[in-house]
């Protein structure tokens, strides 16, 4: 029996694709960003490309430099706009949101689809049952030039999810724990496939968080297969592992690696000067509602000396939060609301922490200098823990949640 990856890549390559084979596939969706599309356009032109083979399958999102903070990044945007207009590619403007979030919201990818994106967090889309993987700019160029991409068919790690989550344990906690268990390259060249009775209790938003963080263990794809591609336990998996949600606990990733995970109580009390709510991990409406609830329950007063930065993952999220009053309440508390997109996550736009600052963030990466300042220390946790830190100015103890 084939794994979900083998099934999808067989269908997209027209070959009997098995783990280890290198195949040339036709992707259903090709995503580029303002951080990767300018280079892709260069490669495309150097390939001799004029006409994009499949413009209706390509989407560019201006998400990393949203809004542009320099004339140079504004020039990247103009280049992408001109190319998109010229070739008939749809462009998602500044403020529309993060490429893989838009793809999910607009249902541009379906279960069984092959999605490539020049953004490592493209894996997020695996939550809906697609094979979605991050590639480079040259791959996007090749896909525009030929309609194709080369891929090595990955081995698969089957992850069985069982049990019931205790209160105050978020999908983020489950995902960080999984990354720590696998290690920073534990899933390198592999796809993760999620199965098990407990999946039914995970919302789409929660699946997106787990698929998103899988790349921090090196995963090529993280698939929650639907019945069309799910071979279940019969498929030939390289490895099996189990997540027992009953044992899951609130955790935090310490600087400077997302797999540097410890129980939340081990870091409790660490002073925090910036709290960042947002990104393709923690920037969905449900995340901000959870955070708001914690903030309101705690009196709604942000601790002196703490900056609270709020960045919806997309305009759709922003509209939802405007409609239900969440953003108004957060603004009244003193939060800084920034343009939908990647925001402060990778130091390309938005708030940059000051020297020596400690940041508690709902994002997925905490590498040194990630947010644009090498002297800052970034801690990663759930929206609930981040909101609690905004109230107290410290990493909370699980008992305080």
């Amino acid at each position: 029996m084939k794994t979900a990856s083998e099934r999808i890549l067989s269908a997209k390559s027209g070959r009997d694709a098995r783990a280890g084979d290198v195949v040339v596939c036709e992707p259903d969706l090709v995503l580029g960003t303002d951080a990767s599309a300018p280079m892709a356009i260069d490669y495309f032109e150097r390939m001799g490309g004029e006409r994009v083979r499949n413009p209706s399958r390509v989407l560019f999102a201006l998400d990393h430099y949203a809004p542009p903070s320099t004339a140079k990044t504004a020039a990247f945007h103009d280049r992408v706009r001109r190319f998109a207009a010229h070739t008939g590619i749809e462009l998602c403007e500044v403020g529309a949101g993060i490429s893989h979030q838009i793809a999910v919201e607009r249902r541009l990818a379906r279960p069984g689809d092959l999605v490539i994106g020049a953004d490592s967090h493209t894996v997020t889309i695996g939550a809906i049952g697609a094979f979605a993987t991050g590639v480079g700019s040259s791959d996007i160029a090749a896909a525009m030039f030929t309609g194709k991409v080369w891929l090595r068919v990955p081995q698969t790690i089957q992850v069985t999810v069982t049990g019931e989550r205790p209160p105050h344990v978020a999908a983020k906690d489950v995902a960080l724990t999984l990354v720590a268990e696998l290690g920073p390259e534990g899933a390198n060249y592999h796809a993760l496939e999620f199965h098990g009775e407990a999946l039914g209790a995970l919302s789409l938003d929660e699946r997106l968080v787990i698929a998103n963080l899988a790349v921090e263990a090196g995963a090529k794809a993280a698939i929650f297969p639907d019945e069309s591609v799910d071979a279940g336990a019969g498929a030939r998996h390289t490895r099996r592992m189990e997540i027992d949600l009953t044992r899951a606990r609130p955790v935090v990733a310490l600087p400077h690696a997302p797999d540097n995970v410890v129980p939340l109580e081990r870091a409790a009390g660490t002073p925090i000067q910036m709290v960042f709510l947002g990104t393709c991990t923690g920037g969905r409406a449900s995340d901000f509602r959870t955070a708001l609830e914690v903030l309101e329950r705690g009196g709604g007063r942000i601790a002196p000396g703490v900056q609270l930065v709020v960045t919806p993952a997309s305009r759709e999220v922003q509209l939802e939060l405007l409609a239900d009053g969440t953003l108004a309440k957060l603004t009244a508390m003193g939060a800084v609301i920034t343009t939908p997109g990647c925001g402060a996550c990778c130091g390309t736009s938005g708030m940059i922490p000051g020297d020596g600052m400690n940041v508690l963030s709902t994002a997925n990466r905490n590498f040194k200098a990630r947010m644009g300042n090498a002297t800052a220390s970034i801690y990663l946790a759930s929206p609930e823990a981040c909101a609690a830190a905004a109230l107290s100015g410290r990493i909370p103890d699980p008992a305080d949640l």
Partner: protein
Amino acid sequence: MTTIQFTGRARRLGDDVNTDYIISSTRKRDTLDERELARYLLETVDPAFAASVRPGDILVAGRNFGCGSAMEVAATVILAAGIRAVVAASFARTFYRNAINNGLVPVECDTSEVRDGDCLVIRIGEEDAAVTNERTGHLTSALPLPTFVREILEAGGLVPFLRRGGW
């Protein structure tokens, strides 16, 4: 197919060198010109690194080289610094494919004995690959490259490969 061969001075790095460390996203905001960006190669790891690189040097890393973001400039900035090959105990997959697609040779083998400054000879044949350390005299066998991947590398990357009508 021909044999790919390089000789160069080893520049030693550790495990889990991510693409943000290879070239910071903040630098990439200012320019995409690799020659300009090459001045900041690996600055988060060692601010003096870029100035000390000589053309022909070989990057030598531990496990999971190039993890994190898929940004391709992490591969092209290494080439722009005059480095043609990276030897690592393992590569993150996005970096690996970006290297191949740009003609930067990724060599996967045990690097635990390599010290900064060692002279290495890399040889990649059709069926086998190996790295010889001239200081120790040791020959370490490396993972051979799949034919499909070698074809792209030998063409000099995805651009020349597709220009010649590949796929």
